[in-house]
């Protein structure tokens, strides 16, 4: 077995970091929890839990609506959170950050807006075969309503994106919008976003980047990427559920009509006609998830405090260790190709269905995910019902990966004919 690389020398102590996450002390089925379902949702550090408790204990009020002191405090905390998010993803201005429920709502918002502006009957939207349903279905609904065409960029048999094939598709199908994921939740490959965004821009297309998996794993800078829109979920970045954001370039976001109507997003309402506020309020109708936004900001401050480069290094060490260790298990094939990947391994095991694997591992306190990972078109393309996925975060340990591999050996023994 490969020697365990140490990142302690870079000032990163996994034991210290684990102490920040109370849930990691949980036992499952009498075993210490080994949480490998971080791509679905990550765990929350005490700093986030405390910040949200403090908000509800001492600052809770509705925002933008009162002159009283608490309302001022809540408004300030909410808007400060927006600044933190903008800085975290490299958005030049904080008004370019719209709080949403998560990636799904962010993509629905852009799809709806572009459907009323840029996209006309007969226009093409280009997606990829590896997209999450959240980056397929909103476009399909829109395509049906508006009479749009959907084209799909290919993947290789490993499930990794065929980048040259995608570039050829961009040229051939002349899409108005290209929407793709920065990193795949199903197989883990990191797509060369900047290269593809440049290709899309050269063809005159706008780009919507699904950052649900990238944001948690490595430093993202939307300005450097030059993407037009970027969506992500707070709960995958160690923040609470029910909060996420859409980034959009100010001029593009400003050109979109409102998404939902209601309070907070209006300038003046009259039955003769209503006028709307500018960015970002126009897209945040109703009372938003104030505590969620504040909790998300706390998560980002926490991550930045640990150092995103150090966390990235730790995660890369974990995934390389796992990839190497999995080669010792007979009949295991890891998907996603040999290119850059986020810290997850999605694999098949000869003769054993993913659900059986997950049940065995669960009995040993190891949480993995199985199934289609909300990427049914990809599973269909690969001709498989699903995979087993172990997705890591910086608080996972090499010893936990050893337990995973040991569990797989045991399954191999039970099922081996």
């Amino acid at each position, binding site marked *: 077995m490969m020697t365990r690389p140490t990142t302690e020398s870079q000032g990163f102590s996994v034991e210290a970091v684990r102490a920040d996450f109370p849930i990691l002390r949980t036992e499952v089925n009498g075993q210490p929890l080994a949480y490998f379902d971080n791509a679905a949702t990550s765990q929350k550090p005490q700093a986030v839990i405390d910040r949200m408790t403090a908000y509800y204990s001492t600052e809770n009020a509705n925002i933008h609506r009162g002159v009283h002191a608490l309302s001022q405090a809540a408004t300030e905390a909410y808007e400060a959170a927006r600044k933190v998010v903008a800085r975290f993803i490299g958005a030049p201005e904080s008004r370019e950050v719209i709080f949403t429920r998560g990636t799904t709502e962010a993509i629905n918002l852009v799809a709806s807006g572009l459907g009323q502006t840029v996209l006309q009957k007969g226009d093409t939207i280009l997606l990829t075969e590896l997209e999450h349903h959240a980056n397929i279905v909103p476009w399909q609904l829109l395509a049906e309503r508006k009479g749009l065409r959907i084209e799909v960029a290919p993947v290789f048999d490993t499930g990794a994106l065929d980048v040259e094939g995608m570039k050829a598709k961009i040229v051939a199908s002349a899409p108005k919008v290209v929407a793709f994921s920065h990193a795949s939740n199903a197989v883990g490959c990191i797509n060369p976003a900047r290269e593809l965004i440049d290709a899309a821009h050269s063809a005159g297309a706008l780009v919507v980047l699904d950052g649900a998996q990238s944001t948690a794993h490595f430093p993202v800078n939307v300005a450097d990427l030059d993407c037009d829109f970027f969506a992500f979920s707070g709960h995958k970045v160690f923040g609470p559920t029910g909060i996420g954001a859409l980034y959009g370039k100010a001029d593009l976001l400003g050109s979109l009509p409102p998404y939902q109507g209601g309070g907070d997003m209006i300038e003046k309402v009259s039955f003769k006609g209503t006028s709307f506020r500018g960015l970002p309020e126009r897209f945040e109708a109703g009372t938003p998830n104030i505590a969620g936004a504040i909790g998300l900001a706390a998560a980002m401050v926490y991550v930045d405090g640990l150092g995103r480069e150090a966390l990235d290094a730790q995660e890369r060490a974990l995934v390389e260790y796992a990839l190497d260790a999995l080669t010792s298990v007979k009949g295991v094939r890891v998907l996603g190709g040999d290119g850059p990947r986020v810290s997850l391994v999605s694999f098949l095991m000869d003769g054993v269905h993913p*659900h059986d694997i997950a049940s065995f591992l669960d009995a040993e306190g190891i949480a993995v995910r199985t199934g289609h990972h909300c990427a*049914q078109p990809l599973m269909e393309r690969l001709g498989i019902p699903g995979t087993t996925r172990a997705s890591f975060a910086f608080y996972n340990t090499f010893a936990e990966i050893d337990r995973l591999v040991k569990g797989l050996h045991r399954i191999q023994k039970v*099922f081996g*004919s």
Partner: protein
Amino acid sequence: MSMEDLYQEIVLEHSKRPRNRRAIPQASHRAKGHNPLCGDEIEVYLKVEDERIVDLSFQGQGCAISTASASLMSESLTGLSLVEARQRFAEMMTLLKDAGVPVDASKWGDLAAVIGVRRYPGRIKCASLAWHALQGALDGRPESTTE
């Protein structure tokens, strides 16, 4: 209960070498069952003569639990009347849903091993998949789901 109790020899054996995993070209009834949770799909075929099941088979790939359940179902229902088969279906659903209902081993035989899955709520639909397809076939519904 450990995993080895759920994945007993009988379950493993039927999942590795399922009985009646084939199509019936002259099937009088057939239907697909789909488990949207995992994407597994099973198609069940029946040959019914004089209100009695004379042949029962299935096709499709699934996890060990769903394959063993389909295989054992095909063995245990062949020869039963349609009324008896429907009753077995209803009893199977009750047994899977309610861990408090005792399993009569003399009646269920090897299927009792599959019913053990009811201690694992996340896996119950694996065991019921083929049965839902069976019921769909008897009701003349070409597709059914475990939902």
